[in-house]
Each structure stands twice: as C-alpha cells, then as structure tokens.
C-alpha cells in the first residue's frame, strides 16, 4: 500500500525500515511523524535500519518529531529536516501531565 502511494495512516516500528521493505517507497508526499523522538534517535543511529531512516527524514515532505521532554530536545534538530521541526515548535502547556 505504501509502495503504490495509497492514502492512509501507516503505523510502523523502525525495525521494519529496510531497503527491501521500504526502499521503493516515495516519501516526498508524506508527513512522517516520529514519536518518542529522543529514544528513537538514541537507539537507531548504530543500527542497520539507519540508512533508510536517514533517507526518509531527508526526503519526506514534513517531519514531525514528538517527545514529552521538550526541554531535553534543544540539541535534537536533525540537520537536513531541522526546518520542519523548528518551524512548528509547539510547547503544550499540559505536556508534562501526559507523561
């Protein structure tokens, strides 16, 4: 479904990213939301799914990074897509309650 560019909401774990599984998918039309950004960012960097993850972050139309610990996130801007993150930086007043 992803490959044929069908509309929809797709939930994926990052382990399922690979050249074989998602390599042919065009993300230039997609909004990619990464939840638990700090944790994902720490875990994914040394893994074999990294090249594909990097491609998605670079090519996606918009990347939204979500994390409850906004104060910890000052250094997280992923350079290529920092534009997307920085321009929609939202601090929800009740964010800490939803931990």
């Amino acid at each position, binding site marked *: 479904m992803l490959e044929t560019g069908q509309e929809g909401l797709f939930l994926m774990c990052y382990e399922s990213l690979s050249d074989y599984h998602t390599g042919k998918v065009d993300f230039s039309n997609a909004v990619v939301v990464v939840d*638990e950004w700090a*944790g994902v960012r*720490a875990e994914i*960097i040394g893994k074999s799914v*990294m090249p594909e993850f*990097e491609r998605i972050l670079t090519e996606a139309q918009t990347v939204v990074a979500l994390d409850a610990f906004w*104060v910890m996130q000052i*250094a997280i801007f*992923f350079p290529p897509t920092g534009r997307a993150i920085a321009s929609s930086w939202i601090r929800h007043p009740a964010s800490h309650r939803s931990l």
Partner: protein
Amino acid sequence: MKWIETRTKAGDISFDHSGVALTIFDSWFPVSKPDDRYIVVTDNRVAAKSVYEWAIRVIGLKESEVILVCSETPEQNRLFMPDPDGCIGEGVRLVILTPTAQSGLDIQIPFTAGLGLFCGVVPGTQALQLIGRARQCGEWFVSAPRRAIDEGEGAFDEVKLQRCLSRLPEALQEVGAAIGKKSDGWAFWQREIGKIWQQFNSEAIHWLLKKYYASVETVELMARRQDFKRQVSKVKTREAEQVLSGNGEHGASLREDEKLPYYDSEVWDYKLAEETEKYPKVYAALIDAYESGDEATREDAIITTKTFLNKRQMDSLKNYIQAEEPNEDDDQALQERQAGYTNYSSSHFKKLQYQELYRSLGLVSLAKLKRGGKLNLDPNENAFNENTPRIQKLWQSFQKNSRLRNLFPIVETIQDFFKVVKSAMSYLGFQKQGGTVRVKVDQPAPNGTDRNGQQRFSNTAPKYFVGWFIRAESGTKFFCENFEMIIKAVRDR
C-alpha cells in the same frame, strides 16, 4: 516522590542498590489491605523476574495476584497491552513492568505505591516514561544508583565538539566508509553523549524527577543485598534450565521463518536456537549432559550454561579473540561491513577502533594483575595513570601513528588518550582494578596537621591508579577456572 539512597558499611553513599526492592516490599506487604495495589517498573529483566519470584515465594502472593510484563511473557503481554485495566481488575496486587511495556500503555487503575528500579539500561527520559505508565499512583520510590566517576574524564565542550566534528571525515575515510552523510555528526554526538548519559544516569533521573514532580525527598534504606543476590542467582539458574530444556529444532524453525515467540515456552526454544547457532558444539554437549547425566553432571551443565548466557562476558571475550588472534576471515568481514553504511556509532566502527589501538600499541602488556595473594597496585609495575612512564610512552607512539590519530578524533590530550585506553581494555573484557597509592611528588604535598594544628607536608601524595587483570583471570570465578574450555568454544564458533 521518594528518592532512594543506601549506605556502605563505612557510612558512605553506596553505588549498589541491589535489594532495596525487598526492603520496600517489607514495608508494603505485611500491612497492606486486600485492596491495596502496587507497581514495580524496572529497566532490568533479571531484576523484574527476581522481584516477581520473591513476591510469590517469600511474600506469599498467589500467581494470579501478580502480573509480570517482560520479553519472556508474550502470552501475558497479548492480554495485558490492549487492556491493562481489565487485566489488573480486582484480584491483582502487584504489577511488574519492564521496557517491553512501551509508552503507548495507559494504566488508569489506581495504585497505592510504586517502585522504579533503574540501572542505566534506558536513558532517564525513558525511565520517567515508564513511571508515567501508572497514571494514578499514591507514592513513588525511585532507585537509580550512582556510578563511580572515572578519574581523568576529559571535558567535552562546544569548542572541542567542533574540532572533533571537523576531524570526523578523516576517521571515516580511514576505514573506507562513505563520508558526508548528513547523520555523521549526529552519530558522533550520540556516542559521546551516550557515555555521559550512562555516567550520570542517576543524576539525570534525579534532575528530571525534580523538574516534573512536585516534591522529591531522599530516603535512606537498608538494602537486603545478600537476599537479593541469592534470588538473582536462582533466577539465572532457572533460566539456564529453561534454555537447556528448550526445543532447539522448533526454535531454529522460528528463527528461519523470522518469527518471534508466540507462546511463553517458545521463548526458550528461540533462545536455545540462538545460542546453539553461536556455540553449536558446546550446546550439544551441554544438552546431552543435562538430559542424561547424573545430578552432579546436570549441575555442571547448568553452571556452564549460566556462563555462556552471560552476554557481556562472552561478547568481550569474542572481541578479545578477534583482536588478539588476527584472522583473515574476521578482518575481511569487518572490512566488508565498513564498506557499507558506517558511522561513528556503529558497532563495527567501534570494534575496528579498539582492535587497531590494541594491536598497534600492544595494550596486552598493560594487563599484569593476577588473582591469589594480596593485590598490590604498584605504579612502577602494574598500575597506571596518565602520568606513568608506560602510558606516556604509549601516548608518544599514538601521536606518531597517523592512522590511530585519525581513528580517534576525540583524543587531543594524554588524558583523553588514557580514557580511550581504558575503554578499549573494557571492550576487550580486561577486568579493571583501581586504587590509591602514595607516590613521590616533586613539591611537598599537604599531609594532615600536627598536634598543634599546624599543616604538615610530605614528599609523597596519594594518587589514583588503575591496573588490569590478565585476560584469563578477568571475569567470574567459574569463568576464570574454565577459561581454556570457554575460549576454545568461542574460537570454534
């Protein structure tokens, strides 16, 4: 929110919190009312299982009153994850969660009290997320033991970060990896900051708790260390038995089909298959001994299995063999992996760094300590710091070696250098022993006061040194006693 500290016999803040869970249980259960409900969250699977067993065996809770969610309970997890509140329902009195319960989980049912046990496996932010799973909890206790801070840790500031990043392409080029990837800087940052996170995990969690919770109070507890250690040992023995009685063929077929365990029993089939792939001969012999041997043979098989299941110990031994006994196949495989996607955080880059350092500088000569007799750290002989001649000599050879210099962009001073030497030795599994020794100093050093309160000076001062045990004597007692057998099994892999 209660922050847990324990003390050593000497009365200092202790780095060892094992057994605080049992102390907390002592305060919870004897007085609890039937409708009291408790939760334990931890980042350590063995701790979770130990607490679970303790609750049943010693506290006397029924199995139906305790829920354990970890990677070894897939049947339970399938019921629990979609409907935790329904699962907990009326009868459950204790819920134990590991990071298998991810952030989506939402438990609305109220708890009387909760306990968080964190040993640095997950970063502080994720530890807080785990605590946050229980939306309503009367009182939290959090244990996150501090770590000893290695002397000689070099500071890492913005300027140094910039310098390191500018040298990063050389490091990657040195191993034939593609350069200019957008995530290269991120990978460098993540690995270096990861170390700091680990070192200051406890402080970070404390800071986060203070930030997100109204009050954080410190409580001092007597930890039941011995009881807990015995319980952990029982859990590990049980694990070894479960692996040895697993169905290896079924596990292998699961692995072949890229399926994860669906039933609880398949966890052990899978694990056995995984281990057998690594050490086929060893496991064939162990299973044979376990199935057909007498009592003593069975016990031996279980102890040996416990050793082989100690992933950290076995991995570092493998690293050691690959560094110590260069082998074309291994080296070529590593080279090939480098040619693919490599960054500063990837495990094969790390392996190559430490292998190079170890081989080119002959770091094996630093490991001189032996067991038996009194351990004597001697700065002229077997103990080192950045001022000892041996390390200074190695530092000079390092500086002359352009490949090494390129591979370690982080090393700028002898302090940095000694730090990576320590990391390399630990990566290869050499056991470290630190200690303070009085040594001669050039300038008189303060040395207490005389009976009139006057400052005294002496020409010696206490300095901190580290030494390493020789490889065959680094590790648990059983590991050292059976080193030859174990190293042979890893060579044969």
